[in-house]
């Protein structure tokens, strides 16, 4: 194990959602799966997330939200990524999701879209498959 390519993930919580446990669980689990993971904390703006992801050259942003706002958040983050010319960075989402939300997100190109309690191996396999 020398300089092999590692998957770089940014876990992002945009807005005032205070539920952090899912993000923290994902953070340590992805590390245990050999990925390099950055968590920017709560209370992020879409621009802040996009800038961080672009600067850190991450492969994928994992959006976490439990207020039911994932489609709105994804839309604003995608817009900010576009401004930075960083559309190659992929997006996935997890948290409170209705079937309608999932459809909207998939239309935007956001994948994954996992509800609470999704087994970690499903999420990990998804990331490995998509980057």
């Amino acid at each position, binding site marked *: *194990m020398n300089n092999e390519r590692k998957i770089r993930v940014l876990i992002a919580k945009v807005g005032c959602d205070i539920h952090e446990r899912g993000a923290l669980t994902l953070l340590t689990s992805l590390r245990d799966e050999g990925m*390099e*993971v950055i968590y920017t904390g709560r209370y992020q703006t879409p621009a802040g997330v996009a800038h961080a992801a*672009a*600067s*850190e*050259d991450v492969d994928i942003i994992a959006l976490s939200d439990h207020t039911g706002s994932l489609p709105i958040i994804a839309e604003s983050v995608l817009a900010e990524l576009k401004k930075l010319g960083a559309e190659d960075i992929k997006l996935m989402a997890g948290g409170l999701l209705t079937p309608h939300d999932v459809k909207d997100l998939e239309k935007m190109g956001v994948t994954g879209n996992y509800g609470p309690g999704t087994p970690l191996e499903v999420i990990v396999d998804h990331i490995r498959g998509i980057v």
Partner: protein
Amino acid sequence: MQEHFKRAPETPHIDEIIGLIQSRNIRGLTKAISIVENDGEGKEDLLNDAFNRGSSACITIGFTGAPGAGKSTLINAVIRHYRQIGKTVGVIAVDPTSPFSGGAVLGDRIRMQEHNTDPGVFIRSLASRKALGGLSEATKFALYLYKAFAFDVIIVETLGVGQDEIDVAKYVDVTVVLLVPGYGDNIQMAKAGIMEIADIFVINKSDRPGADLLTNQVSNTVQLKPENERPPIVNTIADRDEGIENLIEAITATRERTVPHSEEKYRQRVNEEIRSTVLSHLNREVNRHLDGMVEEVLSSSITPIEASKRILPLIRTN
């Protein structure tokens, strides 16, 4: 501002990346760092170009100190001050790679997030990966790239454990050692080499009990040096933005003081770099053959000494 982030192609050719760095495009810089991190194709061209283009106008500062001393918070305040006087800042933040999984939580950035959308600040988190001991290759090479990018100030935040604390001093202009009261002060200070490499001592969380005592201890140790070589001691309370101006002044003064000696230091650095690059390459090469040799020793056909002799001719030079 936004031009910094102009779109970089998805799988860019190395020349494109070099071009992007020339035009100060952030995506180009970060992708270049990824290439050197992952030992990707064109890495050598990138680094050679960066080396030749490297600006000596930048000041490079290394921040070292035990985990929990508040390095990230301090650096955050330092960035703020440099930005207020119009300087651009590039930060290399290093966190440990898990020896078990090979993954890492890169957690320094979260304490510097007020600068997230500032186009004059670039923060890149690096995992230590499997550094031989001391600063990882990626960190050293990233420094090249940052210099090519011509930031006014480049900050390296080290792990704070192991050899890399001592190592960083060879690669930066100013080494700041961070100490904190109540953290087993004697242990912090007794660590081999730490007192020698410091250009500046910062005592953070100076409102804590024990701060005065620690300041005195450091001061006493520092007195042992000849007067013109004594590193200044700065007291800070980073999360209250106190003492930071004094730190910046000390950094500027140190830089000015050491400029006359910079050639000697540069010579040492080049020496160290050549050595470490060769050794890293050797390490990789050895690893390619190691498992096979271990098997041969275990099946009792040869001794370990004989095995090591057999590896040497197999080492590729490219």
